[in-house]
């Protein structure tokens, strides 16, 4: 069952001639699913989340979150969602506990319930020992954890995370991603935006690829990769006579296609592991030496490249 249904969402700043940031985006998120919006900077991911958070009014379309319209029932939507903004949105001169307590009040919690929930969240984000320290004294990773903790205070049904791991160290990023997977295991529905292909690939049940305000592909990782086929791409350079070598490699079993791009041969194969030794044998038999070889499995980067002709910038 879908808990989020986005229908032709559109946002134009300063119409009629202003920037069309989101152009008719539609997707559903099933309950308990992690759905990622993957796209480069400026694709419209944050604008989409801002509309779904009821921060921005859509220029067109609507979305139902937990059965409530973001256009007509914004208050009800806000009670259902937790939002983790891209930038740290905390009060730096307040401690972690003070921040959580204040934000908990803004989410409608009070008294003992608030106190108890703050304790739980501090445990969840593993900052119970630093709860009385001011946030401006925290590392980037710790601030991110508090930033996420705030959104969890009221136990939302849907959690929006807008690029929550930007600019932090790999260890902290790993910790956050593990936390998100743990939340999914508890049944939370998560909408995650990122321009990191690897993160989208690891976390998501389904991925929506956005570019220039439009949804250009939607599906699971396997479904999306199938757009570019399941073949691995092998690029190789030899010490001399590349064209002759390419001819020989076309004869190697398991090689589906060979092209020459500038000074390297590009081969497509269903199983790179089986084909690689044969490529080296063929080169040796021809008296050539492979000076460089590269294997790339089909991934979302290739999907994006295939669909847009541009690289998904990491």
């Amino acid at each position, binding site marked *: 069952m879908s808990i989020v249904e986005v229908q032709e969402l559109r946002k134009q700043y300063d119409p009629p001639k202003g920037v069309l940031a989101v152009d008719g985006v539609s997707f559903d998120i099933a309950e308990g699913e992690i759905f990622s919006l993957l796209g480069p900077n400026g694709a419209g991911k944050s604008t989409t989340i801002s509309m779904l958070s009821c*921060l921005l009014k859509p220029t067109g379309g609507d979305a139902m979150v937990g059965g409530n319209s973001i256009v007509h029932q914004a208050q009800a939507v*806000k009670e259902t969602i937790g939002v983790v*903004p891209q930038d740290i*949105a905390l009060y730096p001169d307040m401690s972690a506990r003070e921040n959580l307590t204040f934000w908990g009040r*803004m989410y409608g919690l009070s008294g003992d319930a608030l106190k108890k929930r703050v304790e739980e969240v501090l445990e969840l984000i593993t900052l119970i020992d630093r709860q009385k320290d001011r946030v401006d004294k925290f590392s980037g990773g710790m601030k991110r954890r508090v930033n996420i903790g705030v959104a969890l205070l009221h136990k939302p049904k849907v959690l929006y995370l807008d690029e929550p791991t930007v600019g932090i160290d790999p260890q902290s990023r790993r910790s956050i991603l593990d936390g998100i997977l743990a939340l999914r295991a508890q049944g939370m529905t998560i909408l995650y935006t990122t321009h990191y292909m690897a993160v989208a690939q690891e976390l998501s049940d389904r991925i929506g690829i956005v570019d220039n305000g439009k949804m250009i592909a939607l599906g699971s990782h396997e479904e999306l990769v199938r757009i570019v086929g399941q073949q691995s791409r092998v690029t190789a350079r030899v010490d001399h006579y590349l064209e002759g070598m390419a001819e020989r490699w076309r004869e190697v079993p398991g090689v589906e296609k060979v092209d020459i791009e500038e000074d390297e041969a590009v081969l497509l194969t269903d199983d790179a592991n089986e084909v690689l030794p044969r490529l080296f044998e063929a080169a040796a038999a021809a008296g050539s030496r492979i000076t460089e070889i590269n294997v790339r499995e089909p991934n979302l980067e290739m999907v994006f490249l295939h669909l847009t002709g541009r690289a998904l910038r990491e």
Partner: protein
Amino acid sequence: MKVLAIAWKDLRSTVRNVPALVMMLVAPLALASLLGFAFGGSESFEIAATKVAVATEDQGSPASPTVAGCMVAGILESPDLKDVLRATRVKDAAATRKAVDDGDAAVAVIVPADFSQVVYGDDPTATAQVELYENPTSEVGGSIVEGVVGQVLADFNGARAAAAGAVAVRSDDGGDPPAAQVAAAAAEAFSHDGGVASVLDIAQRSPKVGKTENEVSVTGAILSGMMVFFMFFGAANVARTILTEDRDGTMPRLFTTPTRHGTIIGGKFVSVFVTVLLQAVVLLIAGRLIFGIDWGRIDAVVLLTLVAAGVAGGLALLIIAFAKTPAQAGAIGSGIYLVLALLGGNFTGTAQTSGTYAVVQKLTPNGWLIQGWDTAMRGGGAVDVRWQVLVPLGFAVAFFFFAVLRMRRRFA
């Protein structure tokens, strides 16, 4: 409760902001100390010409074509005194007293109907009193008028004594007496023992309500101006957090919570008002404890403090409503506060102004507040400061009204 939670959060941030506290509390006290020290020794300073309302009800006397009362009024209107007195003739005694009661004049001079009769008459027991009806806050001005009128009356008394002496000597001798003898007789008549001396005298009165006995110290006058001035900055410091939070993302995040926009912005409004009110209370207490300033009656003090907080808060929020960034708000706000302070008299340490400056002062809310503090420190109560409370209150309401209108559009 959410409104209070937001206000409490901002208040806590302000208390933790040492530079802001220095600006709000230390700076006005330090400036008041320095300026009070610089002007120390003088109890007060009045720099403006005193407005005088003059009514002469003198009916004249058959003994002389000259109406003595008009001579009194004429001297008050003399061009030689224009730097210290601005006298205006008014139709009658009631009108002169009303001019003082309404604040249009500092002193009323009322020459009685029988003035010429007494001056030119030959009844040695007749007396007349010129009434001086004074605004109790106008000490120096009242003294000047009293001095001038007193000198005129003394001249009249002297002339009467000289005449009486001459008549007495002539009666004794039956011929023209020597001048020295006349002078001696006049001097005797002018003396208290002669009984002719004080036929003309001054009766001093003040409005019944607000009769004050207090003087305003220089430090008190300066600190009241500084307090109002720095309350502007105190309010601005808190109000600016609206833009800071908008820039830093906490305001948009607040808008993603179920808390309504009106509650969030309302909480900010409350935090501005409460913070600047607390600032005022601390300064009042500090003024009392450190400088021994008697701020006056509690009813006037409470009203003036509340209204001052409202003015400072409302103006700060209005500026924020139109500024795009915290830096812009700071720059614009500082300019506006400085201009208001210069026009309103925050830096002059005096509420007694006249002429164009007095008019301009009344165009500023802080000008009215400074006048109010002056009245309060001289012992005035709530009734005496009613206009100095109501007019700034009007400013405050207008500031808040337009701030709310603009904020609703901006943060809808």
